[in-house]
């Protein structure tokens, strides 16, 4: 009897503890949010001096797991020195896209976050706070980069920095192979890789097939670099008939990938590539080049002791002698629409973009109008940057929708892997088979979405 009583009491106690645990949490949360609300209303009053303007915690989600203890810690210190009552809390997320997309199903996705690429533009207003109209912000920032995350004229994400798309390569290896001029056509590029294969021990091109996302860098060239047309991505291809036929930008870009692999100008065993290792190998001269955005330059330089060997060149293509390069915003800072710290969040974004000097220190393009091109992109002085124009009102969100519906899934690595697998001879498909299949799927998708096709 006595023992039973004890067990009853124990269970009861445990259950109460369980519930009281929840309640206490909730209560604290409520008080906290009230505090935050007061803080926000204070700041909108704009009477108080700057130091006491903000208080409380600001949660910042970031994909830069590599900088969290170094550069970001310094920015945090600087920012907190300016607003002593504020605490910045970073949450660095390794699988940023995947994790944040899932968290966005709740209201808890930080105060400041990098807008995940998977959110279509017509849904921005549901999740993020507008940061201002393009006209307003273009006084201070380069207008072409503001277009990255806009919906109906409002900017929802401010780029942390901007990147050009090109080829990161080892200058020493290119020189040792006897390549004196940077290739300007796909044929010249293939010849250059062949020379590297013949004259050096390096792997001419490293696909980084296993990592997957690394293959998506190819896609960017199919927009500005090859077409020279800023409207192609968001406004043209969705209405184009057979956009993957011979002679189109996608055909050109992926034919190059196919040729590199089928001619054996890449690593022997693409299925077991290792992204982290590839950085070291490029730095050491074990790899000739890789197709990656300019964001990768600083990582390649930092991966070993031969940082000075790392160079960056435009995608090997030209239109009547003029070279273009796709350029675009990197991850953009946005504010959670459910945040209680919107004003403070904005202050952090302004600090990061305008004052921290983050973009240039990363070797990326700064979106501030007054900032020069970074040192790393000096080979691009003759190159015209093409930044995608946003979709017009009637095309808004259609590219992503069509790309997914058709399952050509241009933003992902799925079909790129298929090209590499075919080029290795692992499937019975020829390159043209794949392109024809893409055309078919694209047409089906266009029909399903009821798009006009020209």
């Amino acid at each position: 009897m006595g023992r039973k009583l004890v067990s009853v009491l124990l269970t009861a106690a445990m259950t109460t503890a369980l519930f009281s645990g929840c309640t206490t949490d909730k209560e604290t949360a409520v008080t906290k949010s009230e505090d935050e609300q007061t803080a926000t209303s204070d700041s909108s009053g704009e009477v108080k001096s700057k130091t006491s303007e903000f208080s409380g915690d600001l949660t910042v989600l970031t994909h830069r797991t590599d900088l969290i203890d170094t550069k970001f810690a310094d920015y945090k210190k600087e920012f907190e020195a300016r607003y002593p009552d504020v605490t910045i809390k970073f949450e660095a997320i390794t699988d940023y896209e995947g994790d944040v997309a899932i968290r966005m199903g709740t209201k808890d996705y930080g105060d400041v976050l990098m807008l995940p690429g998977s959110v279509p533009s017509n849904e921005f207003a549901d999740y993020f706070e507008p940061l201002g109209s393009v006209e307003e912000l273009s006084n201070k920032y380069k207008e072409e980069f503001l277009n990255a995350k806009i919906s109906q004229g409002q900017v929802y994400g401010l780029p942390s920095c901007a990147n050009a798309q090109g080829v990161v390569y080892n200058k020493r290896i290119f020189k040792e192979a006897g390549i004196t001029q940077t290739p300007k056509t796909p044929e010249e590029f293939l010849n250059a890789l062949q020379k590297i294969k013949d004259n050096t021990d390096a792997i001419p091109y490293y696909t980084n097939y296993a990592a997957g996302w690394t293959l998506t860098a190819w896609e960017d060239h199919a927009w500005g670099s090859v077409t020279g047309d800023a409207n192609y991505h968001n406004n043209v291809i969705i209405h184009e008939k057979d956009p993957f036929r011979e002679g189109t930008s996608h055909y050109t870009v992926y034919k190059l990938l196919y040729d590199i692999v089928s001619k054996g100008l890449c690593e022997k065993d693409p299925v077991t590539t290792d992204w982290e290792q590839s950085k070291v190998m490029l730095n050491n001269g074990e790899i000739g080049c890789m197709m990656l955005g300019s964001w990768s330059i600083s990582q390649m330089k930092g991966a070993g002791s031969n940082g000075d060997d790392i160079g960056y060149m435009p995608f090997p293509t030209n239109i009547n002698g003029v070279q273009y390069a796709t350029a675009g915003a990197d991850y953009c800072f946005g504010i959670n629409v459910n945040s209680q710290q919107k004003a403070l969040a904005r202050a952090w974004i302004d600090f990061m973009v305008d004052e921290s000097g983050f973009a240039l220190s990363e070797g990326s393009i700064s979106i501030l109008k007054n900032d020069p091109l970074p040192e790393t992109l000096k080979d691009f002085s003759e190159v015209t940057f093409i930044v995608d124009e946003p979709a017009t009102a009637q095309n808004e969100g259609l590219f992503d929708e069509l790309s997914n519906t058709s399952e050509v899934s241009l933003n992902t690595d799925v079909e790129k892997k298929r090209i590499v697998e075919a080029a290795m001879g692992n499937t019975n498909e020829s390159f043209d088979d794949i392109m024809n299949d893409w055309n078919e799927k694209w047409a089906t998708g266009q029909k399903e979405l009821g798009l006009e096709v020209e």
Partner: protein
Amino acid sequence: MDDVTDSKLTFHEMGKKRFSSRKVQKNVVIILFLFAPLLLLIVFTYMPFTDMVRYSFFKWNGTSKTMKCIGVKNYIEVFTRPEYFGVLKTSLYYLVGSFVQIGLALYFATILNFKVRFSNFFKGAIFFPYLINGVAIGFVFLYFFKSGGTLNSILTAFGVAEEKIPLWLNNRSLINVSLAFVSVWRYMGQNMVMFSGAMASVNSDLYEASELDGANRWQQFRYIILPNIKLVVSLNMILAVKGAISVFEIPYIMTNGGNGSATFVTKTLETAFTMKKVGLASAMGVVLLIFILIITLIQKKFFEGKEA
């Protein structure tokens, strides 16, 4: 305090009260103990499951606030398009692999069942892979199969020419065999332990008697051990079919379903989170569930009345 209240009651009333309070207590205990697991079960299993079934009738990208009901179109797509249903072919490799696995497990369990020196050590060593985290196993074997990796070094050490060694994960006809091998390596120990357990319950007098009759080891296995552990073996076979259909960890970590190693589950994941077709992926999830249910029903039918 009890004494004060009790003194006012008759013996009969006291008993009644004690009885009813005990009954109440019992119910309270039952309810309180069941509450937590049931809550967890409902929140983390049944609610997501009903959501999944609901999503499978919609066209939805996973984040959008609008969902379009399209009836059973997703299910039609799962069954008619070879890129979705066709990946079940990959499971055949794992199915064959798991029969090899059961064979090996039986072999080792039998050997270790007879008097062998260090038998417990060997049992431990064979069981050990099952204890390692699946992600770690994925990475270990990625290096194992790499060109210039562990396997190739071993083979070259035995005098096999480097050029003659295939790329284990690059070769389409080998990749699923290689991956199924990893699966065999990982799960064999578990099978073995189950078989050993079953064998331990065989009466040792039978061995002695058969030895006197001049039975050899194979005959002992064939006529004593196997009939006695038949149920466990067939249970493992049915579990193997289930496992083969829902293979996930090894191909997902090692190759991310690339180069023809996609299984039904990795394909489902890709459909949901890469292609953003959550509705279609949910339908795939439901289809997988139905397969597993069917196999479970067969299993139930098979073992009905055979237990005890």
